[in-house]
C-alpha cells in the first residue's frame, strides 16, 4: 500500500445500487427487444438516441481522464477513478453498435438507392457515405477508443499496487496522443451517425457540439457520484469544498461552452438561410419541435447557468447533486433533439413513443451495473498516484 495517508477505506457500495442497476438493465433490455420486434424502424431511432447518450457519458469520461493527465491537473486526482469507471462502457460500443448497423436503411436516406439516383449532390457524397466504408471506419473508431481506454486504465490500476511514477509519465504520453485522436474521431462519429441523417446538411462545428455536450454530461455524472460518495463517506474525508468548487466551476464553464458552440452553429446558418443548411433548423422549428428547441435552450443553458452562477452553489452538495441530475436529463434531451426530428427525412412521421424511455433505462442500468462492478473490484481513489497528496492539500 502507499505511504500517503489518504483517509480512504475500501467499502462496498450499498447493495441496493447493484440491484437497482440490474433491474433497470434487465427491464431496459427486455423493453428494447420488444421495441425492436414490434417496430424496428421507430426503435432504431430511439436506440440511436440512447447510444449517442451512452457515447457522451463513456467517451466524455475517458476524455476527462486523459485531460487530467495531459494538463497535469492536481485537484481532480481523487475523482479520476470515478471517470474511469464511467468510461468502462467504451469496450461495449463495438457490440452495441451492431443492431444499428443492421437498421441503417431505416436511419439514413442515403441508403435508399432511388433517392440517391435522383440527386446529383448525394451521388457525389456516396464516396464517403457508403455502407462498407461507414461500417469499417466506425468499427475502427470504437476499437481505437477501446485501445486507448484499455491502455490508460491498465496503467492507472497498476499504479495502485506499485506506486510507480513512470506509469504516470506513460499515461501522459498516451493522453497527449489520445486527445487529437479524440477530437478527430468524435467529429467523424457525429458526422456519420447524426449529420448524415440530413444528408445534404453540413456544419463544421458539429463535432465540437457533441464534444461540448459529452464533456458536460461526463462532468455531471462525475460530480453526481463524487459528491454522493464523499457525502456518504465512501471517498476520502480529505476531499473538501475546494474540490467541489472546482467541479462546479468546470460544469459552469462547459454550460457556457455548449451554449457558445450551439449558438454559433445556429446563428450562422440562420443568417445564411441557405436551403441545404436551414432545413436542419426548419425540421427543429416545425410542429411541436419548436417547444422542444426552446426547452433545450432553457434546460441545457439557462437553468444550469443561473443555478451555477453564484459562488455558494458550487460548494453546496445538494445543489451540485440537483444540477448534475438536471444536466444528465438535459443531455438526453439534447441527444433526442439531435436525432428525432430527422425521422421526416426518411418519410416517417414522428410521434412520441414509449420506446424513447426503454433504451435510456437500459443505458442508465448498464452504466450503474458497470460502475458497481468496477467499484467492487477496484479502489475508488488512485492510491498510488504521485499527485495524490498534493491533491488532498489542494486549496483555492
Amino acid at each position, binding site marked *: 500500500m502507499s505511504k500517503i495517508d489518504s483517509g480512504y477505506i475500501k467499502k462496498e457500495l450499498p447493495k441496493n445500487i447493484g440491484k437497482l442497476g440490474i433491474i433497470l438493465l434487465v427491464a431496459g433490455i427486455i423493453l428494447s427487444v420488444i421495441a425492436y420486434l414490434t417496430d424496428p424502424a421507430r426503435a432504431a431511432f430511439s436506440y440511436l438516441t440512447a447510444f449517442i447518450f451512452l457515447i457522451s457519458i463513456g467517451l466524455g469520461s475517458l476524455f476527462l481522464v486523459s485531460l487530467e493527465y495531459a494538463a497535469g491537473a492536481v485537484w481532480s486526482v481523487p475523482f479520476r477513478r470515478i471517470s474511469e469507471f464511467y468510461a468502462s462502457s467504451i469496450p461495449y460500443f463495438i457490440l452495441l453498435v451492431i443492431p444499428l448497423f443492421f437498421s441503417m436503411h431505416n436511419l439514413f436516406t442515403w441508403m435508399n438507392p432511388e433517392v440517391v439516383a435522383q440527386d446529383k449532390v448525394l451521388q457525389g457524397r456516396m464516396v464517403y457515405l457508403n455502407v462498407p466504408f461507414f461500417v469499417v471506419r466506425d468499427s475502427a473508431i470504437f476499437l481505437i477508443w477501446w485501445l486507448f481506454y484499455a491502455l490508460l486504465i491498465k496503467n492507472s490500476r497498476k499504479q495502485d499496487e506499485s506506486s510507480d511514477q513512470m506509469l504516470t509519465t506513460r499515461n501522459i504520453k498516451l493522453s497527449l496522443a489520445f486527445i487529437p485522436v479524440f477530437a478527430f474521431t468524435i467529429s467523424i462519429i457525429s458526422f456519420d451517425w447524426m449529420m448524415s441523417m440530413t444528408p445534404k446538411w453540413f456544419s463544421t462545428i458539429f463535432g465540437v457540439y457533441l464534444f461540448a455536450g459529452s464533456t458536460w454530461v461526463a462532468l455531471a455524472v462525475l460530480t453526481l457520484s463524487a459528491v454522493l460518495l464523499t457525502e456518504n463517506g465512501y471517498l476520502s474525508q480529505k476531499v473538501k469544498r475546494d474540490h467541489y468548487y472546482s467541479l462546479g466551476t468546470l460544469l459552469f464553464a462547459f454550460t457556457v461552452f455548449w451554449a457558445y458552440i450551439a*449558438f454559433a452553429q445556429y*446563428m450562422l446558418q440562420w443568417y445564411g438561410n441557405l436551403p441545404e443548411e436551414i432545413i436542419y433548423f426548419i425540421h427543429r422549428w416545425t410542429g411541436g419541435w419548436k417547444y422542444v428547441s426552446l426547452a433545450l435552450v432553457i434546460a441545457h443553458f439557462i437553468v444550469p447557468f443561473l443555478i451555477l452562477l453564484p459562488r455558494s452553489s458550487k460548494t453546496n452538495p445538494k445543489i451540485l447533486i440537483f444540477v448534475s441530475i438536471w444536466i444528465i436529463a438535459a443531455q438526453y434531451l439534447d441527444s433526442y433533439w439531435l436525432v428525432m426530428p430527422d425521422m421526416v427525412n426518411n418519410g416517417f412521421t414522428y410521434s412520441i413513443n414509449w420506446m424513447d424511455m426503454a433504451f435510456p433505462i437500459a443505458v442508465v442500468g448498464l452504466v450503474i451495473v458497470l460502475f458497481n462492478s468496477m467499484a467492487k473490484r477496484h479502489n475508488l481513489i488512485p492510491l498510488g498516484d504521485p499527485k495524490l497528496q498534493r491533491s488532498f492539500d489542494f486549496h*483555492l
Partner: protein
Amino acid sequence: MPDKKLFGVTALFDSADSILYAAKKIKEAGYKNYDLNTPYPIHGMDDIISNKSSRLGYITLFFGFAAAAFILSFMWWTLAINYPLVIGGKPFFPLPAFVPITFEFTVLLGVLSTVFGMIVVVFNLPYNSHPLHDTEYMHNVTSDKFGVVIEADDLLFDVNKVTEYLESLGGKSIELIYQHEEIKFKVFEPKFLIFLAIVSILSAGATYISIDKLMYIPPFDFMLNQNKGSAQSISSFFTDKHEMRQPPQGTVARGFIPYEFPGVKDTNQFYGNPLLPSKKVLELGRRKFLTFCSPCHGDYADGSSRLMGQFPPGPTLHSASVIGFSDGKIYNIITNGQNVMPSYAYQIKREERWAIINYIRVLQRAENPKPSDFTSINELNKEAGNVQN
C-alpha cells in the same frame, strides 16, 4: 492631529505561517473588520478569515442586466420602430443577430461599471485611492512582508489595546493609518465652475459659428459649390436636360402603388371606401380636412371660406348633389381636382383621402340628421340620467 480620522492599525509579519497564526488569533479575539495583505495568495487563508464577500459583484450584475436591456431595446427601437430597415431579408427585430451585440455590450458595461464602482464605493469618490495606498505598510506588503490591518470601525477597536495586541502576536513596525484629510477639491470651487461654464459657452459658440455660419461665407463655402448635379437644375450632361433622374421604366419606389384609375371620374364602380368610419379614421380625417379642405370649404364644409373672397370660395358640401356623390367620385375629385380646385394627390396620402371622405360624411349627417339620430341621442341622455327634455 485632531482633524484626521483614524482608519486602522497595521502590523507586519515576516512569514506566511506567522500571518496565518496572527489572523487566527485576531479572529478568536473577536475582531470583525480586519484584513490581510500579502505579496502572493496564501492557500488556506479563506478558511481562516471569514471575509464578507464584496458588494462590487452586485454592481456588475445590475449594470450587466441594465446594459443588456438597454442595448436590446435600443436596437429594437432604431431598427424596428424608428427606421425599419430590411437587412438580409430578416425580420425587423432579428433576435439571433442581436445576441452577439447584447453579449458584448453586457460584458463591456459590466467591466466598466466594476472599475468605476470600485472607485466610487471603495475609494469614496472624489478620493481616488484607499487610505492604505502610498503608505510604508503597503510598500512592504507588496514586496516581501505579510501585513494585517485592524480597521477603526470595528466594535472592539481601541488604539492602545489593538497596538498592544498586535505587538503581543509578534507584529513589527506597527503603524497608525489615517483617513484622507478633508481636502477641499479645487474642482468644486465656484471660481473654477464659473470658468468652466464660460469656457463651455465659448467653445460651443465657436463651434456653432464655425460649422453653421462660417461655412457659408467665402472663401470657406467651397463645399457648397461642388461640381455635381443638384435637383431642379438644367443638366449639360443628360440629353433630356434634367439633373433629377426618372426611375427606370417599369419600376416604382418601394411601398408606392401608382394610381390605378387615371382619367376615370367615378372610381366607385371599381371600389368603395376601404376605411370604416372608426374613431381613429375619423380623427385622421378631421385633422386632414381642417388642414387641406377647410380653407376653401369651411371648417364645417358649408362653404364659408376663411379666405374672405381673395380666392373663389369653395362650394358647400352639404348640397344634395355632393351628398349624392359616391365615395369614389369624391376620391377622384381630391386626387385629380375639379374646376378651380387643384389636385391634392401630392399633399394627401391615399388612406388620408379616404379618411377625409369619411369625415365629410359625418359632417353631412350632422347638417342633415335623420329623425333616428334624435331619438338615439335622447335615449343616450336618458341612460346617462340627464333630464333635459
